């Protein structure tokens, strides 16, 4: 773990150094739109709208697809999950946000910082972004099934931090690699409080406004940070593939995904759906974003 952190910090430091040195010689502009939106299915991208822009998001997961035509592959089934969120860009590279997710009524507060951007002349080959959030479980405190007999407010809290390294390879292809850390203050007795995860996601554009998007996030089973001797029913990788259509102020994504949690920490910690098992573990979902500039 320590080694891992040292590597990350030295990478950030090296890029920062390279950036300042280059700035003195000649300003190399950032690449044009590596991603169309700040969000890619469940993951954050290195894209942040220009300063003083408000972004509204509606993220939706339908029910599981296994009922087929009976409920139109889950679209009309109960058990949907919704997150409505608002993000505001304070600076061109700094964004804050708030969102509320239906399941567990989780309120989340988030920060995204674009440390460096990839440049056109390749003086900086990748974009490096840090993302963090804190979520507050909003279910009623009288529910002893969730909180036990000794209710404490701090048990509602969970945290998620992620380092994102992305590159726009060509005009049509952008790929990101992520590593993340999840912490829940309260979990059941057979689970761990902490989870480290890695992931890959990207977009392949096939027309000026449409792209194919995908993501694959893997929660790692690391013995060293586990509180138990063996992993009982550990969380499963999250796979999703879909389409993105974007316009001047909107992005619309529709996809098939395994995770219904929406919030990143929910997905890394609690996703038990396995995409290799087919329809019974998959669902449709969509995301709509809208931008307002001030």
């Amino acid at each position, binding site marked *: 773990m320590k080694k891992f952190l040292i590597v990350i910090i030295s990478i950030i430091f090296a890029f920062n150094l390279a950036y300042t040195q280059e700035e003195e010689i000649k300003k190399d502009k950032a690449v044009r739109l590596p991603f169309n939106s700040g969000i890619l299915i469940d993951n954050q991208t290195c894209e942040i709208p220009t300063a*003083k822009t408000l972004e509204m998001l509606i993220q939706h997961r339908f029910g599981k697809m296994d009922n087929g035509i009976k409920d139109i592959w889950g679209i009309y089934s109960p058990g949907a999950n919704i997150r409505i969120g608002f993000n505001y860009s304070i600076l061109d590279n700094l964004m804050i946000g708030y969102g509320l997710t239906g399941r567990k009524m989780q309120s989340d507060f988030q920060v995204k910082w674009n440390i460096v951007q990839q440049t056109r002349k390749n003086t900086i080959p990748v974009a490096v972004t840090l993302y963090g959030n804190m979520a507050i479980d909003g279910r009623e405190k009288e529910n002893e099934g969730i909180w036990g007999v000794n209710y404490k407010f701090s048990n509602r809290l969970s945290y998620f931090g992620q380092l994102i390294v992305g590159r726009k390879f060509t005009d049509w292809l952008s790929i990101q690699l992520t590593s993340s850390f999840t912490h829940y203050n309260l979990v059941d007795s057979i689970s761990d409080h902490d989870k480290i995860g890695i992931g890959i996601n990207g977009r392949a554009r096939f027309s000026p406004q449409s792209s194919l998007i995908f993501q694959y996030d893997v929660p790692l089973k690391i013995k060293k940070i586990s509180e138990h001797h063996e992993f009982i029913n550990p969380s499963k990788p999250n796979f999703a593939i879909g389409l993105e259509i974007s316009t*001047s102020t909107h992005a619309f994504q529709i996809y098939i995904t395994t995770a219904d949690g929406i919030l990143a920490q929910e997905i890394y910690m609690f996703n038990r759906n396995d995409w290799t098992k087919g329809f019974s573990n998959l669902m449709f979902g969509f995301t709509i974003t809208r931008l307002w500039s001030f």
Partner: protein
Amino acid sequence: MKKKSLLLITTVVITGLFLISWMVPQEQKKPTPWEVPEKYKKMENTYKDDASLNKVGKMLYAKHCKSCHGNRGLGDGPMAKNLETFSGNFSSEEFQNQSDGVLFYKSFIGRDEMPNYEKKIPDDEDRWAIINFLRTFKK
């Protein structure tokens, strides 16, 4: 009794509005002349004839402009019919005779139904790329 007359009035008003909607002229207004500041009239296109920007201009036009102005700049995009004022025919001589600076002002500063794009397209290079692309509509 009161309820009945309320219902009657509502029905009459709604039916009336519905019928009137056919009488209101549906045609789009012709745009009034623009007041372009001197600064923009004299503005130089620093990226004129920069062929490396052709693709950029085309992409940005598709993203930000096409929905109203249409594929070929004829003002026939899918959103165009919702506009009160006709958004212009970019292939016309009248349009193409305007200087790059004037087009720059109209495109990115805007007025009324034409929104301001300074925030959405913050880079001057990108803006001129779009102006260059508008020139390709010339007939």
